């Protein structure tokens, strides 16, 4: 173990988020009863500074260069910085759409911004994690913050209920995570994810690795809301305030996948551990196939937009799990394709939830698909933004979602002797199914008349996110080369 001050330079994106988060929690004490917009401004400034720092640092690193930090607890490489920039900007978008939502729906709580940034710092820690201790700490920092944010509307029955379900399932998953980590530690004798493959290769207890791997599959299954561990997700997504739902769907899910990249892709990957009937890849790929299918089929039946988006994000988690399997099974392009998918998915998610916040106002959320009738004639910009983001979800060219799915499935095809071919076929068929329910919202917006005039929530920050996300989605689709170069794929 060693501590070097130089390591802190590599951790600037993380430190900015953590320090600004703590300052915000303190500052709230002096802002009692006053307008919270300035707190939101500080939160956005902190996130943008953290994101810019990540981008500066990613340019300092060559393709596969890695720096181990703080006694090998954390790692700095291109993937970690691209992901931490993604988390920082996602959080900035969330902080931008929050003040208007707080004002319209009556939950003006200043601590929210501090908790949001602290939770984001947990996400960034997961992007850097190189040890099981930091994986655990990152997941808990992130999750505890999100439980608090879900429960923030204290008087709301639905908000409380969502928080309770989310908390109990999250804590249950933590139990599996810890026990799985303990068993793998028992087999390998190390907590470091970097030393893990070599340690597992010479273990005398492969049974412990198998059991631990299965427990970790369950734990991460809960965290990314994979079927059959997904029952909390629609309730938590619906009951949480819409900006928090956006944060949960974009940053939290991406951070859990980032941890899976480190744990399953790197530490438990290799030539032996994932393979065979007892390797972790077998249950994970079956879970991925079920998740994609059940997520889509259930989404078709939803009338509530937030629940529909929850099931859609469940099916996206399934696609991401295919990528994790491909990475563990040795596909060299899988890591870059996962990061690209996370970028495209998170940007579109923030755009979609910004529009959902925009449509509701004055305590009325207007979440039913029927409520969206005639949006295009009254607010063509919002309808267009929603359409572009939904098409990206559905994987239509020329959006980022199309290339994300394309690269991810292509990397899954690279796996030795086409083992993942069947799940790629399932994924492609399901993309076609998913278009159906995304188009339901689009049809309602464009081809149905409104039942009553709309009075959407207006604020500069919200409009900025609604404009920036669709543009970025198109840019991701039209110039994917730039992004893949940045990721190092």
């Amino acid at each position, binding site marked *: 173990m060693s501590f070097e001050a130089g390591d802190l330079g590599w951790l600037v994106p993380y430190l900015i988020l953590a320090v600004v988060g703590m300052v915000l929690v303190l500052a709230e004490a002096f802002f009692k009863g006053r307008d919270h917009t300035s707190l939101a401004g500080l939160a956005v400034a902190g996130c943008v500074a953290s994101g810019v720092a990540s981008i500066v640092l990613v340019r300092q690193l060559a393709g596969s260069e890695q720096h181990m930090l703080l006694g090998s607890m954390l790692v700095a490489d291109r993937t970690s910085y691209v992901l931490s920039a993604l988390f920082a900007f996602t959080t900035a978008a969330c902080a931008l759409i929050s003040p208007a939502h707080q004002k319209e729906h009556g939950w003006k709580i200043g601590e929210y911004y501090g908790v949001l940034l602290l939770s984001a710092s947990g996400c960034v820690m997961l992007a850097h994690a190189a040890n099981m201790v930091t994986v655990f700490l990152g997941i808990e920092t992130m999750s505890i913050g999100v439980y608090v944010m879900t429960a923030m509307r204290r008087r709301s029955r639905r908000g409380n209920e969502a*928080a309770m379900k989310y908390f109990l399932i999250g804590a249950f998953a933590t139990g599996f995570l810890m026990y799985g980590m303990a068993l793998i530690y028992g087999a390998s004798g190390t*907590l470091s994810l970097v030393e893990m493959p070599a340690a597992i290769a010479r273990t005398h207890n492969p049974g412990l690795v198998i059991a631990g791997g299965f427990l970790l599959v369950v734990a991460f299954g809960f965290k990314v809301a994979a079927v059959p561990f997904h029952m909390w997700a629609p309730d938590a997504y619906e009951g949480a305030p819409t900006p928090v739902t956006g944060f949960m769907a974009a940053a939290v899910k991406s951070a859990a996948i980032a941890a899976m990249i480190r744990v399953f892709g790197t530490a438990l990957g290799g030539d032996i551990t994932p393979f065979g009937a007892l390797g972790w890849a077998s249950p994970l790929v079956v879970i991925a196939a079920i998740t994609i299918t059940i997520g889509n089929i259930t989404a078709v039946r939803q009338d509530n937009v937030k629940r529909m988006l929850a099931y859609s994000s469940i099916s996206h988690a399934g696609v991401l799990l295919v990528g994790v399997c491909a990475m563990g099974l040795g596909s060299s392009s899988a890591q870059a394709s996962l990061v690209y998918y996370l970028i495209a998915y998170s940007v579109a998610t923030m755009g979609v939830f910004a529009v959902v916040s925009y449509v509701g106002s004055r305590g009325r959320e207007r979440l039913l698909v029927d409520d969206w009738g005639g949006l295009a004639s009254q607010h063509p910009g919002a309808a267009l933004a929603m359409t572009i983001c939904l098409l990206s979800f559905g994987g239509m060219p020329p959006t980022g979602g199309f290339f994300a799915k394309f690269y991810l499935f292509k990397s899954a095809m690279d796996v030795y002797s086409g083992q993942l071919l069947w799940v790629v076929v399932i994924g492609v068929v399901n993309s076609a199914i998913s278009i159906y329910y995304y188009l339901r919202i689009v049809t309602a917006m464009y081809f149905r008349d409104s039942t009553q005039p709309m009075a959407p929530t207006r604020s500069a920050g919200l409009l900025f996110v609604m404009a920036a996300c669709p543009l970025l989605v198109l840019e991701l689709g039209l110039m994917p080369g730039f992004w893949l170069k940045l990721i190092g794929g």
Partner: protein
Amino acid sequence: MGDLVFDIGYGHFLVLAAVLFVIGMAGVLIRRNALIILMSVELMLNAANMTLLAFSRMWGDLSAHTFALIVIAVAAAEAAVGLAIVVAVFRGRRNVDVDRLTALRH
């Protein structure tokens, strides 16, 4: 000094931890009171801690000891948030039965 009845080795600790974990898991799945579920989760975490400590001694490596301490600290933070949520739910409904949380079901 030898043990009076039989030698207690790592295996005993690991089996005890596994039993605790299964009891905790069963508690979460079977009991419907949110507080009992929270207690069962703590049982699962303690089972994991005990496993970590037994293996840590077996490997002669202190890193898992620190890990267990961190887990205890984080579990306390998690329980604090969890109890706050339980109190908020109780204020609105006068019970904390998870089967009666049905406002969000369609």
